[in-house]
């Protein structure tokens, strides 16, 4: 049984259905990646897992428990963290305060978690008193991921973490995400850079117009000629 799974999800934002019986799941200590063409419903599938849209059909299970009826806030309290693609930092607050906000629901001492984040992203320690709005795109993404990790989540969901950052920063971010996996966190990612993402993925989901087209290990998908031809540009 998977750690977090959405089964047979169907629904959208009120209009036409964007998801049509799509299923996504992720296990502990695993990186799962959702790839696919534009408009395939990748981000929507992730938002559905978080409860940000009403599903007509399908269930979301977390640790074997049905959480389909919970609000996004309640799912976050259960241990799911989400990094949106844009507007994912508090621009008028310092880097340190951003991390503090990530731990908003925790009552215990957060200093050791902050140390861990600083180890993972050393630049954040250097810039801890700077406003997050003054940082570069890549640094902001690190703040965003750091903020999400501060809640010590069991599942970390990232919506296109490498959108708009340079290739060097992208590699760097993927390295860090691999390090996060080492700590046992389940990571679910939506990615445009399909080839690089599948490279680090344990499993991949190829979505096309709201349905699962291929589901396999990252390696197998990269080797699959049909996937290569249709989605990876040969």
């Amino acid at each position, binding site marked *: 049984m998977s750690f977090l799974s959405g089964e047979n999800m169907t629904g959208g934002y009120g209009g036409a259905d964007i998801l049509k019986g799509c299923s996504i799941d992720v296990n502990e200590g695993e990186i799962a990646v959702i790839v696919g063409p534009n408009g395939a419903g990748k981000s929507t599938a992730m938002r559905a897992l978080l409860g940000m849209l009403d599903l007509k059909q399908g269930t979301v299970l977390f640790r074997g428990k049905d959480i389909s009826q919970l609000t996004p806030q309640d799912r976050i*309290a259960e241990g799911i963290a989400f990094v949106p693609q844009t507007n994912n930092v508090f621009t008028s607050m310092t880097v340190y305060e951003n991390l503090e906000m990530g731990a908003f629901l925790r009552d215990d001492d957060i200093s050791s978690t902050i140390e861990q984040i600083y180890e993972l992203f050393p630049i954040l320690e250097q810039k801890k008193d700077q406003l997050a709005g003054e940082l570069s795109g890549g640094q902001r993404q690190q703040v965003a991921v750091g903020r999400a990790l501060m809640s010590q989540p069991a599942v970390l969901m990232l919506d296109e973490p490498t959108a708009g950052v340079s290739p060097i920063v992208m590699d760097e971010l993927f390295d860090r995400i691999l390090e996060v996996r080492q700590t046992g966190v389940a990571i679910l990612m939506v990615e445009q850079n399909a080839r690089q993402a599948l490279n680090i993925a344990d499993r991949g989901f190829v979505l096309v117009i709201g349905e699962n087209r291929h589901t396999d290990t990252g390696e197998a998908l990269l080797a699959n000629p049909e996937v290569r031809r249709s989605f990876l540009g040969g």
Partner: protein
Amino acid sequence: MEALTDVVNAIVLLLNFVVVPGLSYGSQLALGALGITLVFGILRFANFAHGDTMAFGTMMTILATWWLQSKGINLGPLPTALLALPVGIVASIVLLVVTDKTVYRYYRHNKAIPVTFMIASMGVMFMTNGIVRFVIGPNDQRFLDGERFIIRARDFKTMTGLNEGLSIKLSQGLTIIIAVVLVAMLFWFLQKTRTGKAMRAYSDNEDLALLSGVDPDKVVLVTWIITAILATIAGTLYGLDKSFKPFTYLQLLLPMFAAAIVGGIGNPIGAILGGYVIAFSEVIVTYAYRKVFIYLLPQSLEPEGLLQLLSTDYKFAVSFVILVLVLLVRPTGILRGKVL
């Protein structure tokens, strides 16, 4: 020596008629503008009922003051109203929380656009205004007691031997001191406490704050409570300094909004800055400089007119003009706030 005394006289004149009134009026505007800017930052709408919240809180303070006075309770040299303030604060907290539950919450849950909120707040404004006029009447009310002055003009003259006197009213001194203390407390709250940080996060990025587990209902409740405290204290200080008349508080809405927008709406430091900018502009533009120039210029150049740029009747035009200029030239305000 004669020349030096003239310069000192001119400075005292300006201190007495421009700086001291500007500082105290500016502090009152700043406290009012802070409430407007907080509501705008957190609830994301322009609260037109703010002036009447001030009137309501002040009215309740006045009623409590009169009751205390009738019982013979007072604070000696300080105005009894300070003792009655908690009553006014609690009453306006109740007013704001009830209007939120009965009016604004409905629109919040329906995700209404800011203009809808603004129009709803105008409804609340008329209603609150009606309650205030119904209870205390539309006329001027006086509730100041205790010592009137910190320094009297006459005492200042005998002390210094100057021609011009400097008088500082107790209400002006109190206004400035209380404003400084309140603002310091507010900033400590916003910067250091968990709830304060949640408020800043919610104002900065609502979605991300919700994703971090911030409880929106609590943030909204705390915002109204702080707004009620600031509005009641600002209104009471204004009433002590000038006088209480419900219509005056409705008129205060314009300079307070101007202050919040000039400073950068949604930005608390901007609201304070804006309060002083508007207050000093009003005072500077409407002051008659004749006497100052008599001191400073040689006798042959003695001015004939009043040297007043604008009659005091037009003081509201000043904040309006500044408001329009800022919106044209720098819509985000002096310190960068949100664009309306």
